[in-house]
C-alpha cells in the first residue's frame, strides 16, 4: 500500500512535467509575459527555476507533512481546497451509489428470476442506456425535462443560493442540515441532489444489474437453492436470503470499483449540474494548468481507489466465509 501511494504521487508528478503547457501562463498575466524580470520572479516564487529532481523531493517532503502545495489560481493550499470540495463530491457519489446499487441489484434479480420475459428485456434496455448514454447527454436531457419543462425539480447547483446554510460539520449538506434541524435546506438540498445522483447512478446500475443477473442465473441453478425450496422456504426467501447472498462477492467488487470510479469520474456530471465538487475543481485546474491542484486531485483520487479497494477487501470477509481465517 505505501508503495502504491508513492507510485501514484510520482506518476502524477511526472505527468505534469511532461505536459507541453507552460504553467507560467496561469501565474503571470499575459502582458507581463514579455517582461523577463516578472517571469524570473514568478519562477523563483513557485520554485519553477529549480531542477526537476529537486522539485520532486521538495514536493515529497511537503506532502509528508500533509502539505499539497499552493494552487496557482486560488492561491490557497490545495489540501484546503480539496477538503472544501470533496464532501460535495462524496455526497453526490454516495447518493449516486444508493441509486445505482439499489436499481442494479433489484433489476438484476428480477431479470434473472423472470429470465427472457418482458422484465428481463426492459432491464437489459435500461442497463444498456445507462451505461452507454453519455452523462452530458442524459444529464442535460433529464434536466431539460424535469427542471425546465415539468418544473418538478430544481435546476443545477447544490442548493438554492438564497438559503442560509447550516454550519458545515460533515460537509454533507443533507446531513448538516438535518443535524441543524433545518428542514428547508434539507429538502432543497435533497431535491437538488436527486437528478445528478440518478444520472450518475444510472451509469453504474447498468454494470451492476448485468453482473447480478449473470451471477443469479448461475446460483439459482445450484442445488442449495433446490434444498431451500425443499425445506418449504418462500420464493422471496429462496431468492434473497439464499441466492442473492451468494452473488455478493462479485457484486461487491463492482460496487467498490464503481464507487472509486465515480469519485474521480463525476467530472462531467458536476460540470453539467454546476456541482461544486472535486470534479469541477479538477476541470478548472486542468484548464488553467494549475499543476499543484492537478497533482493534488490525482493523488486524492488515487487514494480514494486504494481506500475503497481496502474496504471492499474487508467486506469480502463478511460476504464470503470461505476467505475468513479460522
Amino acid at each position: 500500500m505505501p508503495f502504491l501511494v508513492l507510485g501514484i504521487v510520482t506518476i502524477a508528478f511526472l505527468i505534469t512535467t511532461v505536459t507541453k503547457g507552460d504553467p507560467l501562463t496561469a501565474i503571470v498575466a499575459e502582458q507581463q509575459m514579455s517582461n523577463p524580470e516578472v517571469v524570473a520572479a514568478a519562477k523563483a516564487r513557485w520554485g519553477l527555476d529549480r531542477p526537476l529532481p529537486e522539485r520532486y523531493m521538495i514536493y515529497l517532503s511537503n506532502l509528508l507533512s500533509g502539505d499539497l502545495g499552493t494552487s496557482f489560481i486560488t492561491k490557497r493550499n490545495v489540501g484546503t481546497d480539496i477538503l472544501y470540495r470533496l464532501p460535495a463530491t462524496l455526497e453526490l457519489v454516495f447518493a449516486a451509489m444508493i441509486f445505482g446499487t439499489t436499481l442494479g441489484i433489484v433489476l438484476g434479480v428480477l431479470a434473472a428470476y423472470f429470465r427472457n420475459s418482458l422484465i428481463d428485456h426492459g432491464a437489459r434496455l435500461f442497463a444498456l442506456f445507462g451505461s452507454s448514454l453519455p452523462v452530458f447527454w442524459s444529464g442535460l436531457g433529464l434536466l431539460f425535462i424535469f427542471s425546465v419543462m415539468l418544473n418538478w425539480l430544481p435546476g443545477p447547483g447544490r442548493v438554492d443560493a438564497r438559503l442560509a446554510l447550516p454550519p458545515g460539520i460533515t460537509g454533507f449538506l443533507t446531513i448538516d442540515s438535518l443535524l441543524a434541524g433545518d428542514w428547508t435546506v434539507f429538502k432543497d438540498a435533497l431535491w437538488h441532489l436527486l437528478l445528478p445522483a440518478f444520472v450518475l447512478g444510472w451509469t453504474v446500475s447498468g454494470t451492476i444489474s448485468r453482473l447480478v443477473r449473470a451471477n443469479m442465473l448461475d446460483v439459482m441453478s445450484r442445488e442449495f437453492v433446490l434444498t431451500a425450496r425443499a425445506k418449504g422456504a418462500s420464493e422471496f426467501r429462496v431468492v434473497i436470503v439464499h441466492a442473492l447472498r451468494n452473488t455478493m462477492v462479485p457484486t461487491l467488487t463492482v460496487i467498490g470499483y464503481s464507487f472509486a470510479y465515480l469519485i474521480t469520474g463525476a467530472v462531467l456530471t458536476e460540470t453539467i449540474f454546476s456541482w461544486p465538487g472535486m470534479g469541477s475543481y479538477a476541470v478548472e485546474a486542468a484548464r488553467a494548468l494549475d499543476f499543484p491542484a492537478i497533482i493534488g486531485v490525482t493523488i486524492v483520487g488515487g487514494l480514494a481507489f486504494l481506500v475503497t479497494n481496502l474496504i471492499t477487501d474487508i467486506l469480502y470477509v463478511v460476504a464470503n466465509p470461505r476467505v475468513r481465517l479460522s
Partner: protein
Amino acid sequence: MSAQISSARPGAINSASDREPLLSIRGLRVGFRRAGDQFEAVRGIDLDVAKGEVVGIVGESGSGKTVGMLAALGLTSKNAVVTGSVRFNGDELVGKSSREMRKIRGARIAMIFQDPLSSLNPVMTVGAQIAEAVRLHQRVTRKQAMARAVELLHLVAIPQPERRVNQYPHEFSGGMRQRAVIAMAVANDPDLLIADEPTTALDVTVQAQILSVLRSLQERLGLGLVLITHDLGVVAGHADRVAVVYSGRVVEQAGVSELFADPRHPYTRGLIASIPNLEESRERLFSIDGSPPALGRLPGGCAFHPRCIYAEARCRTEDPPLHDIGGRFSACHLATTLPPFHSASLAAASLDSGSVAP
C-alpha cells in the same frame, strides 16, 4: 419457481377400501416445453409408499426417477407440466397452490439431494440452515431453533455438535455435510423422506455410514423412505420394496427379495446381471446392449424392446401397461412367461451370442 401443476386426473386407483398408503402416486406424468418443443420426462409413474416403509426407485440417469419425485413435491421448473395424481395421507398434492405445498415441503415430506457439496448454502452456517428449516414450520425462537439444530446434529452422529453448529459448510467433510443435510431434512419430524442418490457423490466407506444413519433414523422416527438410486446394491441392502424405472415409466415393482430372486421384466434382469459378482470371475462385465432412448424420441411399442433379448412382434407395436402378476407388477408382455432367471446364465447366454456392448 413453483411448478405449474395442471389439471389433476381423477380416478386414482386406490380407494379408501384398504389402508391408504402414506404416499400414493398414480399415472404421474411430467412434460417439458422448451422452445416450442415438447417432451415427456415422466410417462406414468405408479408408486405406493406405506408408513415406515423403505421403497427403492432404481433406474439409469435420465430415466425420470428424480424428476418424478421433484414433480410430486411441486419442485419442477416453471415450464414443466405435471399431470396425474399424488396423494399424501389421502390429500391430493397435484394442483395444490405453491403456498399450500410450502407447508408440506420440509414439514411432512422432506427431500435430500445427491451432492452434499452443493446442497448446503456456502455463506450460511450449518446451524443457521438447520434452524431455518425448523423456524419455517415451527413457532420457536431463534435460540430454540439453534438448540434444536445442535440436537439434530447429535442425532445424525456429528461429533461436537455445539461447535459444529456454528461452522460453515466448507469446514465440513463430504460425509458430514450429507449428515447435516439429513439433519435438516428430519428437523420437523416428517412422515416421508425422499433421498435422491444420497450416497452417489461420497466415498464408498462414507456411503455405508450415511446409509446406516438414514436407516436408523428411518426406524427410529418411523419414516417412510424413498431411496432414489442407480445402485442395486443399495436397494438390495436397504429397501423393502423396489420400483424399477425405465425411460419415464415404472416397468417393474416388487418386494426386494422377490425382485432379486425372480425379476419379471427383461430390463430388471439386465440390471441384476450387470452387478459385478465376486464369486464368479468373468472376463467382461455383463452390460445391456444399446443405450436408453433419448427423451422425445421413444421407439414405438415397449420403450425397452430395441434392447430386449426376449422382444417379439407385439413388443414393437404395443406398449405394455403395468399389470398385477400376483401381488407384484410388471410392464412386460412376457412377464409371466419369461424363462426362469439366473443372472450368470443370462450373462453367459448373451456373451455367447455376442450381444455385449463393447
